[in-house]
């Protein structure tokens, strides 16, 4: 990708003004941190954080064939969705490899709304359009800014700038055509990528700064702070959410990743189904597991995973988890090493560092 002309969200000036450190991410110039990753991470677990995720894409599929098209495109079952309901799903190639992982909401009988990853948005739209029949697929990414408001104080803060009764908006539901901070044409979903309660608020592209400022003002006393991509990554890793391009990609299937729960083999034909049925029958060649380091060392993307001296896989994500306060990672290993408690090692700078397989997620909020 040519990076000489990075894209910027409508919140760019606010990030600069807020003292953010900016980095390239998926062709976008985005804030990686403001006050610091650890401080931001803790703020989301304790109070609330505000994220600019306007770089993410949106694709709408509308028409008589909308449901059938969505069903063909994703592994999860959209037929069970009533209006306002949504779900998380991989979207697969015929090989079972993952084109992207996304959320899709049913906004009407014949209308579905995908929210997709930034780095794959263009390719996703091409893929969705190619496999949409008797309906129209529209790339709406440029129309919408997107903010994520996450943390235990998120509902209280958002409630101050919208008249929508957020108590009625349950997990993985979306309401569109709503007003937020005086801005019309917004949508709100109760979703996130942090392991906390929270919302994602979409709005007309240029209105994002107005909503950002209104939320910061409404939430400042509750400890609301801006959060960069650095803490977004550590938060999602503690919650064991997949990062596309690291943990999953076109070479991994949802059954190898811990996404079996999103694969509904009992629904009608969908792209990738044959391979996934076969994998289910014969077993997967490798499986993504979580692990904790037993010594002071930090696993990183790409490091080898070992059993004794034998290579059994590689790390896909790793960090020091600021809230769980230990070094954690995820990676693919051969099936005999997936049992929690199983000892493995991570090769770090030529030396094996001891680790133990653990059940995912690393962090789960108390109800």
């Amino acid at each position, binding site marked *: 990708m040519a990076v000489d002309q990075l894209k910027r969200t409508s919140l760019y000036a606010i990030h600069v003004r807020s003292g953010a450190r900016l980095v390239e991410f998926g062709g976008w110039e985005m804030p*990686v941190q403001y006050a610091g*990753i650890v401080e931001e991470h803790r703020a989301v677990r304790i109070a609330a954080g505000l994220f600019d995720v306007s770089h993410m894409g949106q694709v709408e599929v509308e028409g008589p064939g909308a449901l059938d098209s969505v069903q063909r495109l994703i592994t999860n079952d959209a037929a069970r969705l009533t209006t306002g309901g949504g779900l998380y799903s991989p979207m697969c190639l015929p090989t079972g490899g993952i084109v992207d992982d996304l959320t899709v909401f049913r906004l009407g009988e014949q209308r579905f709304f995908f929210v997709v990853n930034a780095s794959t948005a263009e390719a996703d739209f091409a893929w969705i359009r190619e496999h949409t029949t008797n309906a129209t697929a529209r790339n709406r990414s440029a129309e919408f800014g997107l903010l994520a408001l996450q943390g235990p104080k998120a509902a209280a803060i958002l409630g101050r700038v919208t008249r929508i009764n957020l108590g009625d908006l349950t997990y993985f539901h979306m309401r569109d055509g709503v007003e937020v901070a005086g801005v019309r044409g917004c949508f709100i979903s109760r979703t996130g990528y942090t392991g906390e309660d929270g919302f994602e608020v979409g709005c007309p592209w240029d209105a994002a700064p107005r909503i950002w400022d209104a939320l910061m003002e409404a939430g400042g006393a509750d400890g609301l702070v801006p959060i960069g991509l650095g803490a977004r990554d550590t938060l999602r890793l503690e919650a064991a959410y997949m990062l596309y391009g690291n943990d999953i990609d076109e070479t991994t299937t949802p059954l190898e990743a811990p996404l079996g729960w999103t694969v509904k083999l009992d629904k009608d034909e969908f792209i990738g189904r044959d391979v996934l049925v076969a994998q289910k029958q014969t077993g997967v060649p490798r499986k993504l597991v979580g692990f904790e380091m037993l010594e002071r060392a930090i696993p990183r993307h790409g490091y080898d995973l070992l059993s004794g001296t034998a290579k059994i896989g590689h790390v896909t994500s790793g960090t*020091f988890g*600021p809230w769980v306060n230990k070094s954690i990672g995820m990676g693919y290993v051969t099936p005999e090493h997936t049992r929690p408690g199983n000892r493995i090692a991570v090769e770090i700078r030529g030396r094996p560092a001891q680790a133990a397989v653990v059940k995912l997620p690393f962090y789960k909020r108390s109800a």
Partner: protein
Amino acid sequence: MYPKDLRYSSEHEWAKVEGGRVRVGITKFAADKLSDIVFVELPQIGAQVEFMQPCGVIESVKAVSDIYSPVTGRVVEVNTALGDTPEVVNSDPHGRGWILLVEPKDLKELDKLMTVEQYVKAIGEEA
């Protein structure tokens, strides 16, 4: 902010002469850039270190960086306190956040490093 009695490397380490030995750490500039330091891999006591060759590793939440020795010699002491409190490198990089103490081969080697005036100019900050 940047002590006058230290010498500074282009890779943002500092060196301080203490009775013929050289104490080594990373500069405030480097610590701020890394932010959130969570792990420091120290050299072994007795290890030989070479001028501007890697002698340790420092990890922030986000990134892994090498520590370069600003002097050739033998490691005589390491800051083992960083094992439990690596964040001290962030909070006191020129003091309690020191990393290793070296018995130098030749103290004159430090003349190759920057003075505080040269260093703050290189990083575009005030002394």
